């Protein structure tokens, strides 16, 4: 089964080609959607097969590399088109193909009637292929194809409604920010390649080979540089500080896109990449710290912004940024498997949330469309009380919200609590661990708050939609709700495979599964970790309880403000207008970037063009020409037309010549 791994990206590619080339002619939505969904589902089946086979193997045989064809071979450099199957990639495969299948299915309903339906499915398939390449790539370059490929698809899908300027802008912003990250990725790649090559004559970018040689890497130094570069790449892809602003804007794309790309899969690529190269990252304590700090900061920072947004998808987007922050925090504190675990659970509940919000928007849009109103279908202030009209959506949404808020028993609790605990208990960052834990906890509180704010504003209370439209509100069709139900179920129970040991009910399958992948990293880490007193079980229990309490506090505040006493938010805004404005406007980060990067670049471009290119360079070029022409103008007047002047010139020539020879 392992050597059939190339089938996994092949199926979506076929889907892409069919829909992309012939979709316009097919026209039938069912066929197009069917092909798209079927293809990714086939990939899912293959992935399942691989998973099954891998489960049957002993842990040390769970690594397999499949070389398809040589790609770039030049000089010392070798990069093959090759796939790597190991426990980590299998998990990602399952997430991508599984969630991907569901979202494809969902899209058939959601995108019904859209112009360019075929285009959407083509892009979606292409995205899946790219993501699978990213996940499966056995060397950095194949990973990089996927890495940029998903960026491309993200660009295409965000810009799906290309006639909207905002969509175009958002798409471009997403791609460019990703490119900033790619820049880091490339530099990191170059550094590692060059270092290994020039110092040890190991010219490779293959993960397996690097892993085998990773003991040669020093701690810190060059590794810090390389890993920081890689991390820049990760921040771009995974929307971390400072490159996070594209993700909320990316909500311009259709909602399934947000669910698949901007929640479940693509944005987690950074986390995956760090996991994939954990044995390199761990060699740099500095980088690890930077990752942890950036992750924690992003978690809290995005959470604050999330509290003030009114657009349902934007709230979810900031929530995603914040959750990704948690994952990076996990990576940064060396809790690689916890991070991946959170990645997986997050994929379930966040996909469910996005799809649920899509279902809501779909209904809202439909209703508003019927009465020809132009209210914003995504603004929560226009919603409310939808639970009656859309029960399935409501229930699944609520389940996922509970999961993300970290209520025990649901998947989010297990993963998030694991991260918080590891942040507290990690032995890498000295006294920073308490701070990290604290920030994480506060962020968790905010998470619970804004998520329940969202639920309360959307599904509870008065129905604030245009009254005429109310009657048109109804539950979405089955093709939409089935994925919701599946994902809702996963969000509820998906966490049990990674239940913390301390709860003792189940062994932590997840951690065991990933153990061979991260063992080496942990070994390296232990060489510089503090071997002080390990925090006791009591503390662990206590912190777990504390985090539950924190989540509940957040829910309570949300309940108070948005169900019981709905004037409170207004009062709050009135009390702290500046704070609200700043938070509402995302801390003015976009404006800051415009000010620091975008505008200077444009100004520089203008200056260099009009000022330097035209004035200076062409000025010199044309200036030389003009000087010569000017000389010509002077010279020609020497030619006065008078014979005696000509004779004078001759005589002068003779005199000078003779004079030179006589008096020299």
């Amino acid at each position, binding site marked *: 089964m392992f050597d059939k791994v190339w089938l996994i990206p092949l199926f979506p590619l076929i889907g892409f080609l069919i829909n992309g080339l012939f979709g316009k002619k097919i026209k039938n939505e069912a066929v197009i959607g069917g092909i798209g969904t079927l293809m990714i589902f086939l990939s899912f089946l293959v992935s399942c097969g691989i998973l099954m086979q891998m489960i049957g193997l002993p842990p040390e045989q769970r690594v397999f590399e499949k070389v398809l064809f040589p790609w770039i071979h030049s000089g010392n450099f070798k990069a093959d088109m090759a796939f790597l199957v190991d426990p980590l990639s299998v998990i990602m495969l399952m997430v991508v193909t599984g969630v991907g299948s569901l979202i494809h299915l969902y899209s058939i309903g959601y995108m019904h009637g859209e112009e360019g339906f075929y285009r959407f499915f083509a892009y979606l398939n292409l995205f899946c292929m790219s993501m699978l390449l990213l996940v499966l790539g056995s060397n950095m370059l194949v990973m990089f194809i996927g890495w940029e490929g998903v960026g491309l698809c993200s660009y295409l899908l965000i810009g799906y409604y290309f006639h909207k300027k905002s969509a175009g802008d958002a798409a471009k912003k997403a791609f460019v920010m990703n490119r900033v990250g790619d820049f880091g990725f490339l530099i990191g790649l170059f550094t590692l390649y060059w270092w290994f090559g020039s110092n040890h004559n190991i010219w490779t970018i293959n993960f397996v080979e690097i892993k085998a040689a990773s003991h040669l890497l020093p701690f810190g130094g060059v590794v810090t540089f390389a890993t920081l570069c890689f991390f820049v790449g990760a921040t771009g892809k995974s929307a971390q500080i400072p490159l996070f602003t594209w993700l909320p804007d990316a909500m311009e794309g259709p909602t399934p896109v947000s669910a698949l790309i901007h929640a479940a899969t693509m944005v987690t690529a950074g986390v995956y990449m760090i996991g994939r190269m954990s044995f390199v990252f761990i060699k740099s304590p500095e980088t690890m710290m930077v990752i942890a700090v950036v992750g924690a900061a992003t978690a809290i920072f995005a959470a604050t912004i999330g509290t003030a947004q009114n657009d349902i998808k934007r709230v979810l987007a900031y929530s995603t940024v914040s959750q990704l922050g948690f994952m990076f925090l996990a990576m940064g504190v060396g809790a690689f498997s916890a991070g991946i675990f959170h990645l997986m659970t997050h994929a379930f509940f966040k996909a469910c949330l996005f799809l649920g919000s899509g279902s809501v928007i779909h209904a809202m849009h439909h209703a508003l469309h019927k009465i020809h109103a132009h209210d914003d279908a995504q603004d929560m202030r226009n919603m409310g009380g939808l639970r009656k009209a859309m029960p399935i959506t409501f229930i699944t949404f609520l389940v996922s919200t509970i999961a993300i808020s970290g209520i025990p028993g649901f998947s989010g609790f297990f993963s998030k609590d694991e991260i918080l605990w590891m942040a507290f208990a990690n032995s890498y960052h000295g006294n920073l661990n308490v701070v990290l834990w604290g920030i994480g906890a506060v962020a968790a509180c905010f998470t619970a708050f804004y998520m329940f704010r969202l639920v309360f504003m959307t599904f509870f209370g008065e129905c604030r939609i245009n009254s005429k439209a109310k009657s048109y509100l109804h539950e979405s069709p089955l093709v939409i709700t089935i994925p919701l139900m599946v994902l809702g179920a996963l969000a509820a129970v998906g966490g049990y495979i990674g239940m913390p040991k301390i709860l003792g009910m189940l062994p932590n399958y997840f951690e065991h599964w990933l153990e061979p992948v991260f063992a080496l990293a942990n070994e390296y880490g232990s060489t510089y970790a503090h071997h002080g007193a390990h925090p006791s079980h009591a503390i662990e229990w206590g912190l777990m309880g504390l985090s539950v309490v924190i989540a509940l506090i957040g829910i309570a505040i949300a309940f108070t403000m948005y169900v019981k006493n709905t004037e409170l938010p207004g009062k709050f805004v009135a009390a702290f207008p500046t704070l609200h404005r700043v938070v509402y406007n995302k801390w003015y980060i976009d404006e800051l970037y415009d000010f620091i990067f975008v505008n200077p670049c444009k100004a520089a471009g203008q200056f260099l063009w009009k000022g330097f290119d035209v004035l200076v360079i062409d000025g010199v070029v044309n200036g030389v020409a003009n000087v010569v022409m000017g000389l010509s103008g002077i010279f020609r007047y020497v030619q006065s037309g008078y014979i*005696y002047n000509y004779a*004078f010139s001759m005589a*002068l020539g003779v*005199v000078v010549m*003779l004079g030179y020879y*006589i008096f020299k």
Partner: protein
Amino acid sequence: METLFFLIITLVAIVSAILVITCKNPINSALSLIMTFFCLATYYVMLDAPFMAAVQVMVYAGAIMVLIVFTIMLLNIRIDASKKHSHKLIFGSIIGFFTLLNIAFVLMRSRAAVPTGPYSGDMIKNIGHTELIGKEMFTNFLLPFEITSILLLVAIVGAVILAKKKI
């Protein structure tokens, strides 16, 4: 005696040469030029070249200058009375002066070839200048001599083509 004669001739030659370039009336210039030519003929005699002197007088003073004077008369040229170009005069004079200076320096610092030729003054006196010239011309310089015929033909044709009223 001879030196004195030389100096007088020189004086006349230079003064008449200056007159050539200063006289406003071209006729006067032409007459001064003829004067200069005569002085040159005198020099040729003093240099044991009587044939050259004769040719000088006949060709230059006779033929060429007559032609020139004739032309001046024919064209009835007004006196050169248009406004003076003083800058022209100044620059022209400066250049002329430097020409002179240069040549003078050349002559002062130069080494002429060692006289090796067979034609001493006595020999010329004995054999006769014209005969010697003739011998040279029709032996060693036959070709140039023939070329002059073509030259003169060209000049005639050219003069006709340019100046004849109707061709």
